[in-house]
């Protein structure tokens, strides 16, 4: 029984990391799957969320208020970006989208430097969750990490309900399958895409806000997440939220166990996993939603 406890705890760690990855990856896969837009700037939204959390939490003195305000700001940012920039690139060659969103990464990094500076910042865990539960006689698990996981599960369920059981979700799925026909049916696909893009931005930013207390807030935090998210989306299948969930959990577990049991391979485990999946299922594990 003593051997099982450490493994179970690492499973918990892996799932927690995976759920956070899912939050970011779901936005990426929605934007690509439904709008056909490759969004390299997705990692920047994660970073922007984290910096929102830090600056707003310092201002309001309270992380929860900061998160609510931050979500509103992220949605506004998403709507503005979609209207001003992204909408001109629908249906264009993916290379143009890559160039545009790569430019956005650089712009966001500089803006971040100007607005919030270049120091590494910490965000305090809300007092309500700032204690640990004893799991074994030596190890305790921070309650806040459990809260993050719970929030991610709730959001995953919310996304599932939205896409499968609401009119909006139905319209989104229709618009993804056949845009012209959907428009011919009188549905405003333009507005739909604006909603999807803002949703994606908000999801990434929310992930950054939730993760800020445990991962610290620092420049370049977006690029690390972005690469892993692309791996998740490729493994899970582009456009599939279910795939993003499964892919993210797989990556979370692989990375966690790899760190502990195969330290010589270090960061490679994740990419080896991706290669293995692509050999057997090149389109990823699941089809488009």
């Amino acid at each position, binding site marked *: 029984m003593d051997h099982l406890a450490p493994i179970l*705890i690492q499973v918990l760690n892996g799932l927690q990391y995976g759920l956070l990855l899912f939050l970011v990856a779901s936005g990426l896969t929605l934007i690509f799957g439904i709008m056909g837009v490759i969004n390299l700037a997705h990692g920047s939204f994660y970073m922007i969320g984290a910096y929102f959390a830090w600056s707003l939490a310092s201002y309001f003195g309270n992380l929860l208020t900061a998160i609510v305000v931050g979500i509103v700001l992220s949605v506004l940012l998403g709507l503005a970006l979609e209207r001003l920039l992204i909408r001109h690139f629908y249906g264009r060659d993916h290379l143009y989208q890559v160039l545009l969103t790569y430019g956005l990464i650089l712009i966001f990094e500089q803006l971040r430097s100007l607005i919030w500076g270049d120091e590494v910042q910490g965000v305090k865990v809300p007092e309500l969750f700032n204690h640990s539960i004893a799991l074994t006689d030596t190890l305790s698990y921070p309650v806040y990490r459990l809260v993050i996981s719970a929030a991610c599960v709730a959001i995953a369920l919310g996304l599932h309900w939205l896409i499968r059981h609401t009119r909006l979700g139905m319209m989104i799925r229709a618009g993804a399958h056949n845009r012209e026909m959907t428009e011919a049916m009188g549905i405003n696909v333009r507005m739909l895409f604006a909603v999807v893009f803002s949703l994606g931005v908000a999801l990434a930013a929310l992930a950054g806000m939730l993760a800020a207390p445990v991962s*610290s807030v620092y420049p370049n935090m977006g690029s690390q997440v972005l690469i892993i998210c692309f791996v998740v989306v490729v493994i899970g299948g582009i456009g599939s939220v279910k795939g993003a969930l499964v892919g993210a959990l797989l990556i979370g577990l692989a990375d966690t166990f790899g760190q502990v049991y195969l*330290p010589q391979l270090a960061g490679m485990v994740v990419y080896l996993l991706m290669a293995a999946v692509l050999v057997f299922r090149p389109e990823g594990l699941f089809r488009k939603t």
Partner: protein
Amino acid sequence: MSHTHTPSNTSIDALPATPVSRRRFLSLSGGVAAGTALSAPFVQAQPAKIKVGMMLPATGTFASLGTAITNGFRMAVAERGGKLGSREIEYFAVDDESNPAKAPENTNRLVQRDKVDVLVGTVHSGVALGMAKIAKETGTLLLIPNAGADDITGPMCSPNIFRTSFSNWQPVHPLGKVMAERGHKTAVWISWKYAAGDESGRSFKEGFEKTGGKVVKELGLPFPNVEFQPLLAEIAAIKPDAVACFFAGAGAAKFISDYAAAGLKDKIPLYGSGFLTDGVLQAVQPQAQGLMTTLHYADSLPSKRDQEFRLAYAKQFKMQPDVYAVQGYDTGLLLAQAMDSVKGDFGNKAALIKAMEGVKIDSPRGAWTMSKEHNPTQDIYLRKVEGEQNKFVSVAWKALADPGRGCRMA
């Protein structure tokens, strides 16, 4: 980054069409002649300024260390009236972002573009190795105020490269002896996987196993990752007598805080080289209480020299100095003392180098001398965190010299 060349578009056709009258031409040239005649005596009287290129992190996890080093250096120079060997200084600064991939480009900005006389930097060992390579090729004088990569005073050693801080091997070496004396027989080592982390780990293992202890596992994560949770769980599963680590800057603060949040603080004692607790205590004061570390500096050294230094630094910069500030300060002292011995004649490289080799620095950390491989031979102290200070406990090792393995010089 590539340089774009704008094509020259001046041609005879592009000259202004307005005719220049002879009167205007004569008055203009008269003005120029008068100007050069007036300024000539001033230009001749001043010896050329010494160009000092500071390549330090201004962004990222080591940014505050870069600031402390710069503060210390400037303070040492200011104490001597702002001059080195009676010559004024012109500063150039580059942010190295603690990014080894950009090191050659950033170093060349100072060496080739700004043509600095002295290169000072840096914090990250990987970046410093890039700087050392270029310094070796160009012969530029390089003073290293922090980066501890063993190779710099090992296989990469060179007459024009000096270090005023430590080698990664040094501060952590006595830790094994300290932990063994406190009854710990098994230990887990944890750090980032990069030059500083790996070399500290090897030195700790060497020191600890010499006293009969055993390092049961070595854990690492990529720099500057701070997701420690899986590794903390692994430490709890292994249940060693103690944990030894190397972390620095913001990552160190996070590790101390996560270690406590995982409930390990009171169950498995944590030790580290002093970088774990230097400069971070303000952020993690409650969780860090009682932590014991070894380093070549401490916050309450029983030395008048140190107390004077700390008062002056706090007065000028409104914060307490740490080991990084002392290293920056000693770099200034080293350059100043050497320039004084050659009486400002910077061109005489051989004499300058000989002066630096024979130097004895009256540092706030205690007097130290330069080893054969150009690394400080210095005392290492045992410290304990009390309040917001790393209080001096005892001398863990007197006049410890880095073995300088692989250096073929002198």
